[in-house]
């Protein structure tokens, strides 16, 4: 018999739990597809069922990645920031519209490449935007701005909603989010998305942070510019 330490056992356990969580979500998604002869209202409900299950699966998959970051699965490479942000925007645009929010993207440099892992960067932007959608007040817009900043590329996501509570702000200042919080960060949140984004950013040696506004919060990630020539 060999004892392989607590860490592997913990990771194995998380992978098993993740698989068990994904199974009902995939079934729910397929059941939604199987509905037919729907009214337009039913069709909306079906779309929501599919979207909700896909978002939950993404979070489960991201949690798996958090626990597999050191397995050599995620290579760093030159990544086009705009392409990633546009792709996330396409995926989440429907959700913003559905929840009566809008999203504005601005790029100061359209062709900038950064050193990152595309999959992880996608998840960071995705989680920041989902967070911003969740906390923006109805009819308000969230903003994603990409700009050069002290030799790095900064992706900043701003929401216009309730200000970040001071205790959460202190948590972030102490070292970002090291684990999902058991108490709500802001009403209705465990901070899971920020925990995921924080871990992915740390793995890519990127700076992450937040700015507290009176009318909302900005979350940002700063990534090193790739030495490879820019796309255009």
């Amino acid at each position, binding site marked *: 018999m060999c004892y392989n330490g607590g860490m592997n056992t913990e990771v194995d356990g998380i992978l098993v739990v993740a*698989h068990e969580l*994904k*199974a009902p*979500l*995939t*079934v729910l*998604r*397929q*059941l939604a*597809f*199987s509905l037919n002869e729907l009214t337009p209202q039913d069709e909306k409900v079906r779309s929501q069922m599919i979207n909700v299950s*896909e978002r939950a*699966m993404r979070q489960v*998959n991201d949690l798996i990645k958090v626990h597999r970051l050191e397995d050599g699965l995620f290579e760093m490479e030159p990544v086009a920031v705009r392409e990633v942000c546009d792709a996330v925007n396409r995926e989440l645009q429907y959700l913003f519209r559905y929840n009566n929010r809008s999203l504005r993207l601005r790029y100061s440099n359209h062709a900038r490449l950064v050193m990152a892992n595309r999959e992880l960067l996608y998840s960071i932007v995705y989680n920041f935007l989902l967070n911003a959608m969740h906390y923006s007040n109805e009819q308000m817009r969230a903003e994603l701005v990409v700009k050069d900043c002290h030799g790095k590329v900064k992706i900043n996501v701003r929401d216009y909603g309730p200000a970040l509570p001071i205790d959460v702000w202190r948590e972030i200042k102490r070292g970002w989010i090291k684990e999902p919080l058991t108490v709500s960060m802001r009403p209705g949140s465990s901070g899971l998305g920020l925990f995921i984004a924080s871990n992915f950013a740390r793995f890519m040696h990127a700076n992450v942070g937040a700015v507290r506004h009176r009318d909302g919060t900005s979350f940002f990630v700063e990534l090193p510019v790739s030495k490879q020539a820019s796309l255009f």
Partner: protein
Amino acid sequence: MIFVIDDDELMAECLANIVKNGTSEVMTFRNAIDAMNCIADGVLPDLIFLDVLLDGPDGFTLMNDLVSYPDTVRIPIVIVSSLDFANRDLSEYGVVGILSKETMTPEDIENYVNKHAK
């Protein structure tokens, strides 16, 4: 005849309904042993939709069995799984396609049925 092998009853039912809508005959199995017994009884499927993680012998055990016999070696198999098989070539097992349970749509199932079992 099309086999759907998945230990999740609801998932198997969803897949079977899609196949039936395409007017193909379908049999569902919760485990690999029942499917193998059915084949041993003389029912040779034109196509198999196969989950990998099953109760008892897994999907790879079943595929190894199928490629061991001349009458079953050419049965096309579509893997339907939540596991990540991206960029894996499993053609030596008779695998003609890999569908992710997280992203597949009914059209994906229908395409394989039309291509391999019509």
